[in-house]
């Protein structure tokens, strides 16, 4: 869409129809009345069980489905419940009171697995230990709901012969009629306010995305970027400020400088294209999931534009009828601490197969004690699933058994790698944008 008059070419940025679907993550009417986390687990079990029960007849139609309390020794059956993984090395607040503190060795800070971990299946009526070689504890975490087929042994364990995960949720068809390229740019881990932040590198990204860099060809590419998503950890407020003590006047600058610097960059961006900004673990937002949108007062300049959208974490939106779901990384990082996989993309695949964005919440990941819903359940499979603040850029196109197609994107930390990610809405192809100030 360029004016081809000589010397006066104006390129117009492409537009895409945006719909924000964060409603289920926003905490509005919820009031804390002293409820415990048992309610969120109950809602999760109830919802996932009804999904699994519709899948069991296609899996093993001839076997009865029992409750845990209804198990009979030696009788083959199927039980559905929530998994609990007992981990010896999992840090427990009670360890402070244990007299044998020295018995627990210094653990690697990023992984609490041990060979002694075992799995327990639990439903409303009871719990039973799962035995057998079919379920490797290293691939599972507490909080997922599965169906297992097997029988109770004489020791009271349940010997697992086979198991069923819910699998990818049904997906709404992606519109295939678009013929033009439209790109969505993803970036995360800017960490404004730390030494790792390189303002020139980020300015390069801003200039490229807004179209201030390069010749006409490059500007043409930039004009096809319809949305920028900032997936968390845009600034870094030193954790020393979170101790609850009053901040000395001389330290006020340390608190506000990163926010102001980020606002200046953001204002340049929102003047050019729609920007979604999500909170991360280092941002000034609440700790437990779902993190609420960063407050508009933090962004005095950028919030004046209607292209500026402050979002929750996890974030769910739709662009030209393509469904996007993503987080700032806490859900995958927590899975990494309590289970094993060959790469982060595999963790992401697992969360889609388990139909739950953050299965370890509320066990090891902070989460709001919902009473009447579990907002992290994935009811419909997204087309694009992204996770921010990871070590490196990785991507895979996942194909499901029911013709689902999901683009999985692991967005690296920009302050460390200088890499942003570009996704083409037309064909879900992904490539990296690398910015470097080293000559």
């Amino acid at each position, binding site marked *: 869409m360029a004016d081809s008059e000589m010397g006066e070419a104006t390129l117009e940025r492409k537009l895409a129809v945006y719909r924000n679907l964060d409603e289920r993550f926003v905490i509005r009417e919820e009031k804390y*009345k002293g409820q*415990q986390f*048992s*309610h969120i687990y*109950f809602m999760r079990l109830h919802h996932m069980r009804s999904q699994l029960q519709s899948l069991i007849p296609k899996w093993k139609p001839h076997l009865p489905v029992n409750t845990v309390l209804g198990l009979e020794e030696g009788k083959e059956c199927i039980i559905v419940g929530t998994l609990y993984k007992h981990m010896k090395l999992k840090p427990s607040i009670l360890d402070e009171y244990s007299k044998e503190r020295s018995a627990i060795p210094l653990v690697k800070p990023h992984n609490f697995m041990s060979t002694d971990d075992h799995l327990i299946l639990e439903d*409303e009526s009871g719990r039973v230990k799962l035995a057998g070689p079919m379920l490797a504890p290293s691939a599972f975490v507490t909080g997922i709901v599965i169906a297992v087929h097997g029988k109770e042994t004489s020791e009271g364990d349940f010997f697992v012969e086979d198991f069923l995960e819910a699998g990818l949720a049904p997906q709404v068809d992606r519109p295939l009629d678009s013929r033009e390229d439209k790109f969505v740019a993803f970036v995360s881990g800017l960490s404004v306010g730390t030494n790792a932040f390189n303002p020139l590198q980020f300015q390069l990204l801003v200039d490229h995305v807004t179209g201030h860099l390069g010749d006409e060809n490059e500007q043409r590419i930039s004009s096809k970027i319809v949305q920028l998503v900032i997936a968390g950890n845009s600034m870094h407020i030193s954790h020393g400020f979170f101790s609850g003590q009053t901040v000395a006047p001389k330290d006020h600058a340390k608190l506000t400088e990163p926010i102001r610097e980020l606002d200046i960059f953001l204002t340049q961006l929102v003047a050019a294209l729609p920007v979604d900004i999500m909170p991360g673990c280092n941002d000034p937002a609440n700790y437990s999931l779902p993190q609420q949108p960063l407050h508009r007062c933090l962004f005095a300049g950028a919030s004046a534009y209607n292209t500026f959208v402050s979002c929750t974490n996890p974030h769910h939106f739709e662009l030209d009828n393509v469904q996007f779901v993503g987080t700032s990384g806490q859900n995958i990082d927590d899975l990494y601490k309590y289970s094993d996989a060959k790469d982060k993309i595999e963790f992401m695949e697992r969360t889609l197969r388990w139909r739950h964005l953050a299965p370890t919440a509320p066990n090891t990941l902070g989460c709001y004690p919902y009473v*009447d819903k579990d907002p992290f359940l994935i009811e419909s499979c997204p087309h694009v699933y992204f996770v921010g603040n990871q070590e490196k850029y990785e991507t895979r196109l996942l194909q499901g058994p029911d013709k689902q197609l999901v683009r999985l994107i692991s967005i690296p930390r920009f302050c460390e790698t200088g890499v942003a990610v570009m996704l083409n809405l037309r064909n879900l192809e992904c490539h990296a944008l690398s910015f470097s100030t080293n000559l």
Partner: protein
Amino acid sequence: MSSGDIKGFYRQKKKNSGVTKPSSSSSSSKKSKSKHYTGGASVGAPSAAQTPALVTRGGAIDLKEEYGDEEEALRQFDMDMKYGPCIGFGRLERWERAAAMGLHPPPHVREVLVGLASGSTARSSKFKCLWEGLV
């Protein structure tokens, strides 16, 4: 520990309210036994003294005989695992949640709760679950 001072030592919340014990034979034999009991922690304690744990819900004494069929039905609803945990959650809200989930909770429970809503505030304890304040 002089047994003479014990009666004043243990504050007696209730001596004899209008509670009638239907199973009078077993309880009266228990009463007579405790009077003769000369050892243990309850030495000298009058049998009608109430321990604080039984005093809940704004001072109402929580004895088995005091509640009627309504409370019994509400408690059964609380205890039914099919509708999920009951702790920290009002009974009416739990009923509404169960209905929204399609579990078909018994309608007469809702009628009792809604009927109480229009009643006096002294009955407000019935909106809280069985374990309120105890766990």
